[in-house]
């Protein structure tokens, strides 16, 4: 069974974050994400992480689902943790032969980890609590450049089609005796398969474009979005943006 990257799998749940105007939600949480990733103080970054975890709990998105995605984030973050403690100059904590672990190195690595995980966690309440189509409409309604909105939209729509095409290619390769081995044949075959996927994608893009032009596409995509702002949408935005600003006010004091 194909594992689709369905970020909006839990969009049908009911929570105060699900029931938040998509536009205000996007902007508020994005401000919070920027606020956290721009922090330079580890303690404040930890507070940011706690806020992110609380928001994730409020959104009711299952931790197991989030965990699957965090695995990939860890894949990119952990190398920092393995390299920085040994490479950043500063107060020495431990020494193994020629390698020394510094306090500053550990602190920086932790800071990067905490900021990255906080941002990754906040993505879920931000876009995992509404259908991806609603996110697109919110972006469009927020006057994000239309070309950018189209790129996001097509990436999301066709990632499923391409995943299933890749899956069927791999299946067909396996059924004809292909297996991953430690030989030059494996990367060569995979390279050809991925190359074919690019060719197929290109051909599909032409057909999709034809279908779009047939239905009156002239460069812009418009959707209908019946969003209505209510007082409670603003009430939810205040604490989130408040925390975002507050973290930096504290950073100034600290």
């Amino acid at each position, binding site marked *: 069974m194909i594992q*689709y990257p369905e970020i909006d799998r839990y969009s049908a749940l009911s929570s105060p974050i699900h029931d938040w105007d998509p536009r205000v939600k996007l902007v508020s949480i994005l401000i919070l994400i920027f606020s956290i990733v721009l922090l330079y103080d580890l303690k404040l970054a930890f507070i940011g992480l706690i806020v992110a975890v609380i928001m994730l709990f409020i959104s009711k998105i299952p931790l197991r689902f989030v965990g699957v995605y965090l695995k990939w984030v860890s894949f990119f973050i952990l190398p920092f943790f393995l390299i920085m403690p040994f490479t950043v100059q500063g107060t020495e904590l431990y020494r193994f032969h020629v390698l020394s672990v510094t306090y500053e190195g550990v602190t920086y690595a932790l800071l990067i980890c905490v900021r990255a995980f906080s941002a990754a966690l906040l993505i879920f309440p931000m876009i995992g609590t509404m*259908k*991806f*189509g609603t996110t*697109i409409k919110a972006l469009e309604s927020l006057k994000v450049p239309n070309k950018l909105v189209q790129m996001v*939209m*097509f990436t*999301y*729509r*066709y990632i*499923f*089609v391409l995943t299933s095409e890749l899956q069927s290619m791999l299946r067909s390769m396996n059924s004809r005796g292909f297996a991953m081995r430690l030989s030059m044949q494996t990367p060569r075959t995979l390279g050809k398969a991925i190359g074919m996927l690019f060719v197929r994608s290109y051909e*599909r893009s032409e*057909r*999709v474009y*034809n*279908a*779009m*032009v*047939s*239905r*009156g*596409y*002239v460069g812009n*995509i*418009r*959707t*209908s979005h*019946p969003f209505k702002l209510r007082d409670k949408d603003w009430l939810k935005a205040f604490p989130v943006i408040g925390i975002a600003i507050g973290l930096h006010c504290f950073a100034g004091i600290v």
Partner: protein
Amino acid sequence: MKKAVCIKNLSFRYQDMTLALEDVSLDVFEGESVVLLGPNGAGKSTLLLHLNGILRSEKGSIEIFEEGMDDGDIRSIRKKVGIVFQDPDDQMFMPTVFDDVAFGPINLGLSEEDVGKRVASALSMVGLTGYGNKCPHNLSFGEKKRVALATILSMEPEILVFDEPTSNMDPKSRTELIRTIKELNSEGKTIITATHDVNAVPEIAKRAYVLNKTILAYGTVKEIFENADLLREVNLEVPEVVKLFEILRCFGYNCEELPLSVEESIEHLTRTIEGKDGHVHLHIHEHTHEQLNSVIDRHFHPHKHHNFDKI
């Protein structure tokens, strides 16, 4: 009768100079349903892409309701001609079914209320009311095909063009789609269908063109299916019903005009039985084996000889 589509001497080469169409001329009248028959690679899809100006050729002319492609606004032609593409994943590019069906009407500049009405009506015509919030990747292939049709119906075109509408569909979805095409035609829509599903042809059209880069023949569906040599030349065959009645004829069933569809065969059998005191008489006569061999060779194994002496 008014011509909905008039193509004169159209030729087309792709950029790599491959000849796709050569001197194609055809007419489709308003309210008519016409089939474009041809093997794979015959240029059917290429011809269809000319009907709303996606592909343009310098050789030949195309008129839609007497309006040339270069005469006026190409948007008005695209409003009149709706193409349902073969692969629904090409046709559905928006994140939800509603947005996809609404894409055309929004581009036509309709109000939000009218867009909503058109979407609801199009989804109801294809039997998918309530599917608006679904994501395309969660639909079955048959459902995707129906949504693809709805995305065109919502634009309310006068001419509907189908590219291989029944390919890869399960029998039930195929039957439903054929019924929808027939209904649309009976409501007055002009229908052009490119296909090599010969069993579907008698159901959806009265007239057919045989295309293999150029028009090889045209006429009523009956006339086309009577031309066995032509069908063989373009890798096509007669519908299964025709084969069955040819076999029945070997056993003495009297039918000069072969029925092409299930509906026609019911009519034919009823007529025959009513005219023969309530029954049909089949028997093996002296030429049965010889005739059967000939039918089998013609339709099933053109390169192999059979011996049915032991029947």
